[in-house]
């Protein structure tokens, strides 16, 4: 290790630029203390990270639960005038990605998807059915929740608020049954 070369003051005097630099260095230095600022900035960052909602927004569909004792029996012979429309939902195919909707109402025979069902039902509103028409959705045991909800939403969107979700596998209605 070699010792640093001794400073030659005579050189500074002869160089005007270096002389100015030496004079400036002699003045009291104004330096900003960055540490507290960084502290506060980090705190602000944590604060904003915490209040940000990273979870995707969630919506909810209100489902009015049938009252205890008020079992809308689809086969009750005394309720013929307001017999509910039964809609079966089944998921099939690879991983249950496809689904089919069948109904006991012949008007809806052509509707096999939730969207078609919704459109057909909307056309029937105030024509053949009132908005007090009851619906019973009868999903199969393996019916996907997604498909069940799509049908539920389609019926409600068509303007019929009275919908009941039947226990799984309760409906005798099956694909292939003549409506």
């Amino acid at each position, binding site marked *: 290790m070699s010792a640093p070369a001794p400073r030659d003051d005579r050189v500074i005097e002869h160089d005007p630029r270096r002389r100015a630099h030496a004079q400036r260095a002699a003045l009291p230095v104004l330096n900003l203390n960055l540490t507290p600022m960084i502290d506060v900035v980090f705190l602000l960052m944590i604060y904003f990270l915490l209040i940000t909602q990273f979870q995707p927004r969630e919506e*909810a569909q*209100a489902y009015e639960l049938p009252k205890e004792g008020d079992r809308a029996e689809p086969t009750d012979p005394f309720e013929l005038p307001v017999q509910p429309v039964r809609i079966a939902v089944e998921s099939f195919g690879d991983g249950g990605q496809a689904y089919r909707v069948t109904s006991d109402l012949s008007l809806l025979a052509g509707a096999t998807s939730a969207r078609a069902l919704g459109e057909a039902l909307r056309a029937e509103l105030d024509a053949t059915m009132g908005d007090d028409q009851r619906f019973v959705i009868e999903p199969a045991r393996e019916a996907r*929740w997604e498909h069940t*909800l799509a049908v539920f*939403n389609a019926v409600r969107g068509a303007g019929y608020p009275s919908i009941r979700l039947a226990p799984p596998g309760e409906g005798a209605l099956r694909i292939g049954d003549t409506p």
Partner: protein
Amino acid sequence: MGRRHQREPAQVRANLTPMIDVVFLLIIFFLLVAQISRTRRVELDLPEIREAQAGEASRDQQVIINVVPLSQSLGAGDSYRVGLRSFGRDGASLERLTTELRRSLERQPETSLLLRADRTESYERVHPAIKAARAAGFEQVELVTRPEEAS
């Protein structure tokens, strides 16, 4: 130097930085506590419904039933979760779930009930939760969906 200090009145300067630091730390502390005490949600792929007739899920006083997907389930006794409690699918567990729901309804009659289930969940696994809600005396259950993404 010493004489000069005696002549001039002492300047009182409040250093605000540590105070701001502490205040922010307190805010973060309370935010974290609020976050932890909030009901835990299970990570789910919620059903996405086209043209949903849905509203914003009520936020004030809510009980959430999560239908735990089989891939995340810790065993047979972990099919439904309410807060940090797990319930199975057998009759006795569903009875406990009903009791738990009824108790929260009695404690706070304004409680709204949310049902979260994965979109691939079979109806067979979702329905017992609806049944329990009905047995507990809830008039309405909110079926949680994901709003359709604008494409």
